[in-house]
């Protein structure tokens, strides 16, 4: 199998050199293969979100290497990292939707710099919202939607750019049971279509869809279940 | 009609003659006193957007008559 993402002895220290210094990740090495579904689990503060952020090129490690398709991201410029992020889709725990934008704009805003026209973007958003069961929410604002609906909008945004990998941080933590079940079904469908999934969660239903589960504790990788 | 009157940003003489028309008071009276030998900035025409410096240097007749004269 081809390795899509890899970490080698990655350490992340927040606010280094201050009294508030936090070692969020400590010497973590793992790899994610193309088309796989990998999950991270562990107690709060164990470093799941930080690891996901490093894999998603949202920040740089303090020590160690993160490789995307064999390429070391350490030496890449800010613009290069952004180009790599365009191959990824993110589902954030708090949805990270822009409140002042309509639902369809939130979904397709990342596609503006990629040159997609307004008409094409609107069509794509309507198609994704139809697939995700929100066909009548196109012009609504995020704050007019329920948590589950917002999370589905967040998924639609992640899918809109046809990413090679989707990174989802605690995707069910803000959802009720029914919404969580729906979300897991969408994730399964996406994975079945060949997209690599990297998840972080406590939720056993989410962990159940993963082929590999990495367990973290205090920033260290303590176990891997396949 | 009045032989020309009103060059400055004021509408009466009570504030500052220079601010009303520098032909009437070519030097702001406030700048001559009240402290002997000292300057005094006129509070009235200083705040204007249309601010005159002394209009015409007072020229003594003998200076006009002997422009190149030197004082021994």
């Amino acid at each position, binding site marked *: 199998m081809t390795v899509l993402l890899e970490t080698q002895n990655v350490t992340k220290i927040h606010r280094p050199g201050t009294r508030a210094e936090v070692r969020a990740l400590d010497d973590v090495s793992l790899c994610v293969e193309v088309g796989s579904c990998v999950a991270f689990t562990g107690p709060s503060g164990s470093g799941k979100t930080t690891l996901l952020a490093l894999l*998603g090129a*949202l*920040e*740089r490690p303090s020590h160690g290497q993160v490789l995307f398709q064999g390429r070391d991201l350490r030496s890449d410029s*800010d*613009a290069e990292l*952004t180009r790599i*992020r365009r191959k990824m889709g*993110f589902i*954030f725990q708090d949805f*990270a*939707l822009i409140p*002042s*934008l309509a639902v369809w704009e939130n979904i397709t805003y*990342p596609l*503006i*710099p*990629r*040159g997609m*026209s307004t008409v094409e973007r609107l069509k794509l958003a309507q198609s994704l919202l139809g697939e995700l069961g929100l066909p009548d929410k196109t012009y609504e604002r995020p704050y007019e939607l329920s948590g589950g609906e917002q999370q589905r909008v967040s998924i639609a945004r992640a899918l809109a750019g046809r990413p090679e990998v989707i990174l989802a941080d605690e995707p069910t933590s803000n959802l009720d049971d029914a919404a969580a079940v729906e979300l897991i079904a969408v994730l399964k469908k996406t994975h079945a279509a060949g997209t690599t999934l990297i998840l972080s969660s406590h939720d056993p239903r989410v962990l159940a869809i993963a082929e590999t589960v990495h367990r973290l504790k205090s920033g260290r990788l303590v176990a891997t279940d396949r | *009609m*009045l*032989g*020309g*009157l*009103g*060059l*400055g*940003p*004021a*509408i*009466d*003489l*009570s*504030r500052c003659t220079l*601010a*009303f*028309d*520098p*032909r*009437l008071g*070519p030097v702001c*009276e406030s700048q*001559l006193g009240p402290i002997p030998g000292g300057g005094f900035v006129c509070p*009235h025409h*200083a*705040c*204007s*957007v*249309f*601010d*005159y*410096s002394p*209009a*015409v240097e*007072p*020229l003594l*007749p003998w200076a*006009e*008559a002997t422009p190149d004269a030197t004082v021994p």
Partner: protein
Amino acid sequence: MRLFLEIARTGFAALCLHPLRSGVTICVVMSILVPYLAGVGLSHGIRDVAEDSLRFGADLTVTGLRFGRTVPIPLSAVDAIRRIEGVTEVVPRIVGALSLGKNREPAVLVGLPHGRLPKDVKWVQGQFSDSSTLNEFVVGSQLASRLSLEVGSIIPPFYRSAKGERLSKVVGVLAPDAPLWQANLMLTSLETAAQVFDQPDQVTCLLVSCRAGYADQIKTAILRTAAPDSTQGAIRYRVASRRELESLLPSGWLHREGIFNLHFVLGFAVAILAVLVTSGAGLSERRREIGILKATGWQTDEILLRGLVESLLLCCAAASGSVVVAFVWLKWLNGLWIASVFLNGVDAVPGFEIPFRLVPVPVLLAFLISAIVVLSGTLYPTWRAAIVPPRDAMR
């Protein structure tokens, strides 16, 4: 190009997405630009009026000088100056300050010889009679309004004179659209003015008209003489020529001096701070938005372009709004309150039509100032948020 325009369009959309922030920023910028434009507009208007005053005024204005200060000139000086070669006309004039009424309203009393008084000038309502036994005055519009005077009003004696006091009659009121300096004016005959001030045979200035090309020569000739009948030492002359005043006018117009500029610089600094604070108030929201954009694939330069378009639109809106408000304020509100800030002696509600002219340079400058204020207040925080890792910006 299409991509550029598409990103630029998001900048415009961003302006509308944060109406409160945009509105506050525009208001802050307008609060410094409107007084600036109004002040400069007024100064241009005053300059126009001053130029008219110079154009229609005498070639030379002669005043008396004693101890370096202005003093009256004996009326007999008129004949002496009239004899100088090249002089075509010498008009004695009295310009004096007095105050009237319970509130001591300041007024400028102007006395001119009978033949020089206007019989039928379009901006005077009413006219002088040749045979009245009363003191006759034409009064300025603001003064008339302050003292509740109208044509036909009788004013009880308001002066002391060795020859005794007389009743005065208002025979005319200057129209409000006449030049601003008429506002507190009282126009009368030379004799009446001399009586009011109790200065017989004295005038404050002489208006000298010359043949073309003789002005400098006549000025020199006047400066070499002294008032002929001075019994208490000589009264020297001071002569202001039209050319000297013409050269003085631009420097008077350049609003570089005084506290106006100081106030403006202070206002400018406060505006930048205010816009920074405004931006700071929405900074966490802006930072998070930028973090989301970066996380989802927007490049830093694309975010900056979006911010630049947003800022430029804000600055254009603020500057255009300022020009419109300044024009409305000066034209239709007649400089309500603001004219009294920039013009001495003017009421909060001016009793006459204030002069103003909005010219291109200050307007362009307003756009530049607006751009500096807005760009420093909004684009800088955008840049700060755009250069940090997306995860930090989203926190």
